[in-house]
């Protein structure tokens, strides 16, 4: 995931320190987007580049006409996916037969945008890896339950294989993963990339 430094963010967007920290306090920018890293000069702060630039533009577009509370509510609504079955049909490569084979959408009312994107991305990987229908359905059901049961924001999704069985690993931050020789990582994707892509698709379709 590409990152942008705090200084570069302020320079590129023209916002001030005061605005950045006020928006953080008001919950318009999630705390876990402030990524602290040790640097030569001490601790420096970085952000997920695409998400942060998009978020700042969203806030700037509304700040003169809406209160911070209203902006926060709007962002929260946009950050959720409802009607999971319909969303999977319209924003993923799953066809109706596949979606109707899933059990999870019947019990999940909403997901965060990143969680939804993680599952969509996993499905795309199962297609490329040529999983059988039943294997893919089982994996996607498990993935939906996993992301729905956590408040963590998925960062990476990995498709893995152990012997003849397929597995997924979803991680919430840039994480080093290692495994024994019995498990092989087939493919890993950045959830943010999938999220950006399907968000654009959604915007195009609702425009």
């Amino acid at each position: 995931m590409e990152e942008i430094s705090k200084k570069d963010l302020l320079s590129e967007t023209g916002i001030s320190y005061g605005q950045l920290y006020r928006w953080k306090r008001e919950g318009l920018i999630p705390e876990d987007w402030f990524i602290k890293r040790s640097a030569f000069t001490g601790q420096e702060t970085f952000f997920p580049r695409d998400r942060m630039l998009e978020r700042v533009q969203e806030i700037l577009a509304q700040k003169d006409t809406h209160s911070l509370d209203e902006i926060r509510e709007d962002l929260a609504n946009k950050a959720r996916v409802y009607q999971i079955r319909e969303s999977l049909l319209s924003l993923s490569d799953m066809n109706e037969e596949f979606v109707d084979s899933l059990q999870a959408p019947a019990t999940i009312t909403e997901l965060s945008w990143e969680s939804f994107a993680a599952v969509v991305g996993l499905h795309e990987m199962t297609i490329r890896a040529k999983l059988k229908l039943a294997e893919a359905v089982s994996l996607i059901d498990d993935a939906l339950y996993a992301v729905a049961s956590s408040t963590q924001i998925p960062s990476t999704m990995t498709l893995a294989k152990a012997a003849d069985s397929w597995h997924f690993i979803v991680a919430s931050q840039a994480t080093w993963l290692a495994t024994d020789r019995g498990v092989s990582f087939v493919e890993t994707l950045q959830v943010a990339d999938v999220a950006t892509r399907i968000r654009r698709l959604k915007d195009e379709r609702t425009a």
Partner: protein
Amino acid sequence: MYTRYSGTGKYEQNAKQGKSRIDGVVIFPGGSFDELSINGVCTSEGPIEANLIDIDGVFTASSDIRADSIDFDGVVTIHGNLRVKKADVDGVVTVRGVKVEADYIKCDGILTAESQVSADVIEAEGFINAREIVGDRITIRSFRKAGLFKFVMKVREAFTDKDFSRVDLIEATRIELRGVRAKTVSGQDIIIGPACIIDRVDCTGTLSVDPDATVREIIGVVPNQ
């Protein structure tokens, strides 16, 4: 409704109160209040939420405090986070949680935060010690003997750390400091006043450094003096 609790011992209350006044040596569970006045030696065992809090005496909060306005006049220790619109610190306040968040902080006493203080505006004639202070406009004028700084520093043993505010990182749009020791000061428009010792200043706008200040490294702009 005005509810008055006093005396020693523990009192129980669960309902949202009107004006509440707590006196004496009291342990209470915390709760939700309109106006809360705390005097004496008090401890709260749960989170407190109020429109207005007035604290005198010695108060220990075991959890978070959230309010529109808080007046701190005593010795207060908060074992949690502090979230307030306006805070007026005249006593000694220590916040052990991960954050202090406010719209406005006025500090004529001593505020110590173990993590980050984030506020739109901070005006301190007292002392603020924190890992980070961030916001929009930060003014800390801690060292009242600034005019004598150059002379007095020759007899360095006359000074202890309590004569300075100590912060690792100060970051804001506009910063004015006096009597502050900091590792890094980053901002748009910065005034480093007398009796400051700063390791690194990173300025993107205008910078002024007093001759009686020590700044080891400057990044960004050339200072006006």
